[in-house]
């Protein structure tokens, strides 16, 4: 099976090739974009990059903000540590 790098290279290469065709206006006449669309084609890689970065920042930021701090788990554990110490000592364990 192709590695992740190969998969990425394949998809990236294909998309880049399609973009280059449109950039150089080599596409079949039937696929000719309207003038408005033609104008933004050169900027598309930049737009994609910015969109990806913005999405990444938002995804990381959101998960950072909603991260579960598990305060109850820590308190529960502290209680259990007391129980464990008491029980172990009662059984003759030397800490």
């Amino acid at each position, binding site marked *: 099976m192709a590695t*992740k790098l190969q998969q990425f290279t394949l998809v990236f290469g294909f998309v880049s090739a399609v973009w280059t065709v449109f950039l150089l206006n080599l596409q079949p006449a039937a696929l000719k974009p309207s003038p408005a669309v033609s104008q933004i084609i050169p900027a598309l890689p930049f737009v994609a990059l910015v969109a990806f970065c913005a999405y990444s920042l938002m*995804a*990381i930021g959101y998960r950072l903000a909603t991260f*579960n701090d*598990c305060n109850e788990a820590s308190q529960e554990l502290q209680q*259990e540590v007391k129980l464990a110490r008491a*029980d172990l000592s009662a059984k*003759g364990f030397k800490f």
Partner: protein
Amino acid sequence: MATNAAADKYSVLLPTYNERENLPLIVWLLVRAFEAHKFNYEIIIIDDNSPDQTIEVAKQLQSLYGEHHIVLRPRPGKLGLGTAYIHGIKHATGNFIIIMDADMSHHPKFIPQFIAKQREKDYDIVSGTRYMGDGGAFGWDVSRKLISRTANYLAQTLLRPNASDLTGSFRLYKKEVLARLMEECVSKGYVFQMEMIVRARLLGFTLAEVPISFVDRVYGESKLGGMEVVTYAEGLMYLFANT
């Protein structure tokens, strides 16, 4: 393969290095969790000749809980976590292996949940996750969370492993699955845990996740230095290019 639940045995691999404070507590919690559900179990303690004499504590626990429940497989020196697991599997008599840290970051109360999840669809691996449902971590400051979140996002984006927590080390494996994966995996540390999941997916093993609350170690020293970040990035690139 449908397993007969009553015949299942769970071998916990507990590598220790300077855990004399934590070991009795984690073992007590493990015994309580297993006894409450009447599971067959053994706890294999792999101590690498810890300077704090963890082994002395382990011996006391063995005489307290019995040699069939507490198995000591010490090694003469600090040989690292990866080889500790290999060493442990060799001596495990269970058909399932649970790997976890002995520093109380991983609470044994989740083990019955792992087992129930495993039995649902006879999964090959059940992995604890800090990044889903009620999962999370206690004792992390903002920068620790940011590093963890970013590292996880990068791994998810680059490797698309279909598992939410790649670097966790609280997992249940079928013994033969773990043995097979240990043969395949070459990385160390966090990257090793990540490689186990990625290779498991490639080999077609099935995996389920259970949310866990991770409580950062109370006793002993914690380390997450700049070096670890570099090692992680390198490991991620390695897996991106090779899997």
